[in-house]
């Protein structure tokens, strides 16, 4: 424990250096700015801002990435409260009560309590993360290739079943993403694979242009269907929190923090169910549940703390197992890998200074967000009044420079256009985007696990059933896949056994 504390203190030493603090401020500022832009959620915002960190040294990049991560989450809250347009489902619950408060002239209070709830949810769970991560890592070090393969299968199944509106479309996206991840040079035999003679594809499909295209450009193309969307004038009152507000918010923040962290740890769950569960819990525990929907501060405090706590919880499988728990975390993982940091059980041993700097940066990012956002809220509002026709070229400019600067490649610029179109079509067809990001990162690990397992067993597939952890993970994956199908069949059987009344026949 004392060793952890000294490592954390050294992480703070790195994160609090003057130049890193400047990057943290810049990250929070840019993250909030891009995160609150119309239609751009945290995933798109991080994807667009990622390349800025490519030119930095790893420590500065980590500090800035953590700040961007938190900034994007808070930017989403601003638009949810002021304009009832959340960029993600996570902030959707905040919008329900927060926007009603804004309509009553209490936008300042809603944003202030949201900032405080996010701060508490963020800082407490970073502490939990620091405490739990190390013991879990030593457990993960006992995993062999079959266990890793089974764990990745389970994670992908959870992402598909819990995070997609249709399991079939979710599975199609997952397999499509895995095929994209196979493009490049075969890691064992060194043969070009699915490259169709393109030299540019020998190193695989570049991750950053793909996510910039899918999330950034795809989102802009969707918004261009109706670019006249503009925000109304928003009035921000004083950022005053009364004693009654604080008394009502404190328990909601505490509950939201615990609930959010526990839900966030499960791959595929993410911030949406965390915020939703917190909102429902607050409504159930309230003495006046009928007043929910009219601007109850508990409905802002609980979901906001749960939202941030879940965002941190999703980092636990990343840091301990190298498996991202959500789409945003998958993008963050790509960013860390771009800076030479490979998340996973070995990271705490081989790159411990960078890991603890990352954890310390999360604390710093949370504090800066609180300091930065409260006084800047009126400025954010004025930026949101800029018409979209002025904003989207600026965002597209970032995507162009970002995609080009990573490898100085014209081919990557073409990729953002192609994947922008794919992202737009996928949105229109209601195909989930997150599985592609997850599989682009996890695909090579999954294939490696499968191939090494079969090498170990000399081609015998029963190796996956002979090892208890592997069998357990795969059984869970099958159960999660079959559960929705079974409930669908049961519903159909029930409907078939119910006699049809004459009025229902047509």
């Amino acid at each position: 424990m004392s060793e952890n504390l000294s490592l954390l203190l050294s992480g703070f030493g790195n994160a609090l250096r003057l130049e890193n603090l400047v990057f943290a401020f810049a990250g929070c500022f840019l993250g909030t700015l891009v995160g609150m832009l119309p239609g751009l959620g945290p995933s798109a915002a991080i994807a667009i801002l990622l390349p800025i960190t490519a030119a930095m040294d790893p420590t500065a990049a980590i500090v800035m990435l953590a700040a961007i991560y938190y900034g994007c989450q808070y930017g989403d809250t601003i638009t949810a409260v002021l304009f009832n347009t959340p960029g993600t489902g996570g902030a959707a619950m905040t919008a329900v009560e927060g926007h009603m408060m804004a309509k009553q002239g209490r936008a300042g209070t809603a944003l202030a309590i949201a900032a405080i709830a996010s701060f508490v949810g963020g800082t407490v769970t970073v502490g939990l993360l620091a405490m739990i991560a190390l013991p879990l890592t030593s457990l993960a070090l006992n995993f062999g290739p079959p266990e890793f393969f089974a764990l990745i299968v389970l994670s992908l199944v959870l992402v598909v079943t819990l995070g997609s509106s249709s399991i079939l479309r979710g599975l199609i996206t997952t397999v499509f993403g895995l095929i994209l991840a196979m493009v490049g040079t075969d890691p064992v035999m060194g043969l070009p694979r699915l490259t169709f003679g393109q030299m540019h594809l020998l190193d695989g499909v570049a991750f950053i242009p793909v996510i910039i295209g899918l999330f950034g450009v795809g989102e802009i193309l969707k918004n261009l269907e109706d670019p006249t969307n503009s925000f109304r004038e928003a009035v921000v009152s004083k950022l005053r929190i009364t004693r009654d507000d604080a008394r009502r918010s404190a328990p909601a923040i505490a509950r939201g923090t615990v609930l959010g962290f526990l839900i966030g740890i499960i791959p595929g769950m993410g911030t949406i169910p965390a915020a939703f569960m917190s909102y429902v819990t607050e409504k159930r525990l309230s003495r006046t549940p009928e007043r929910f929907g009219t601007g109850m501060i508990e409905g802002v405090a609980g979901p906001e703390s749960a939202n941030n706590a879940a965002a941190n919880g999703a980092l636990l499988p990343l840091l301990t197992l190298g498996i991202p728990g959500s789409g945003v975390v998958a993008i963050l993982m790509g960013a860390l890998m771009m800076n030479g940091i490979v998340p996973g059980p070995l990271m705490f041993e081989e790159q411990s200074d960078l890991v603890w700097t990352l954890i310390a940066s999360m604390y710093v990012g949370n504090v800066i967000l609180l300091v930065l956002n409260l006084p800047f809220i009126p400025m954010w509002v004025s930026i949101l009044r800029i018409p979209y026709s002025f904003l989207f070229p600026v965002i597209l400019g970032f995507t162009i420079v970002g995609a080009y600067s990573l490898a100085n490649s014209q081919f990557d610029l073409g990729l953002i256009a192609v994947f922008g179109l794919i992202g737009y079509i996928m949105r229109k067809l209601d195909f989930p985007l997150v599985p592609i990001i997850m599989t682009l990162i996890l695909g090579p690990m999954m294939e490696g696990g499968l191939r090494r397992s079969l090498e170990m067993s000399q081609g015998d597939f029963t190796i996956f059933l002979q090892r208890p952890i592997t069998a357990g993970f795969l059984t869970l994956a099958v159960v999660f896949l079959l559960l929705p199908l079974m409930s669908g069949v049961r519903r159909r059987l029930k409907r078939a056994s119910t006699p049809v009344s004459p009025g229902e026949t047509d």
Partner: protein
Amino acid sequence: MRHMHPTYTITAIVLLLVAGVVGQQAVSMRFYTVLGPGAGFFPAILAAILALLSLGLLYQAIFKADTLPEIGFVADPLAYARIGTVLVALMAIAVFIEDLGFRPMMALFFFVMFAVLGRHRLLLSAALALMLTFAYHFFFKGLLNVPLPSGAFGL
């Protein structure tokens, strides 16, 4: 009950074609070697799964169309003109940025975005395009030291 869902039927057929191409490529590689699975092993499995899932989507699109979401793909032709302009502009940047240089291409790109898509006055669009181009150049090249292409004219 709705009739066949054309958008998802086309999607399923395209996905089937993708599965076919990937399957054909996978088969042309080594499927299994003395050391274990070859380069084509995992792609072949994925192609087979994608083909099965695509057939599932095709079945849903033809026989269970009412379980799929309605999609207004050709709602507003102007919207698709805007989307097409952005995509063509991005491709043009991809093709010409190294020959013509960062600043001329970005200035042209911003001008098209403001003037054609934003419908702002030509003078305002030109001024904004120039301002943004130099701001980007200063921020990325001047401050962050990001290498940007100068092109044949050194711009």
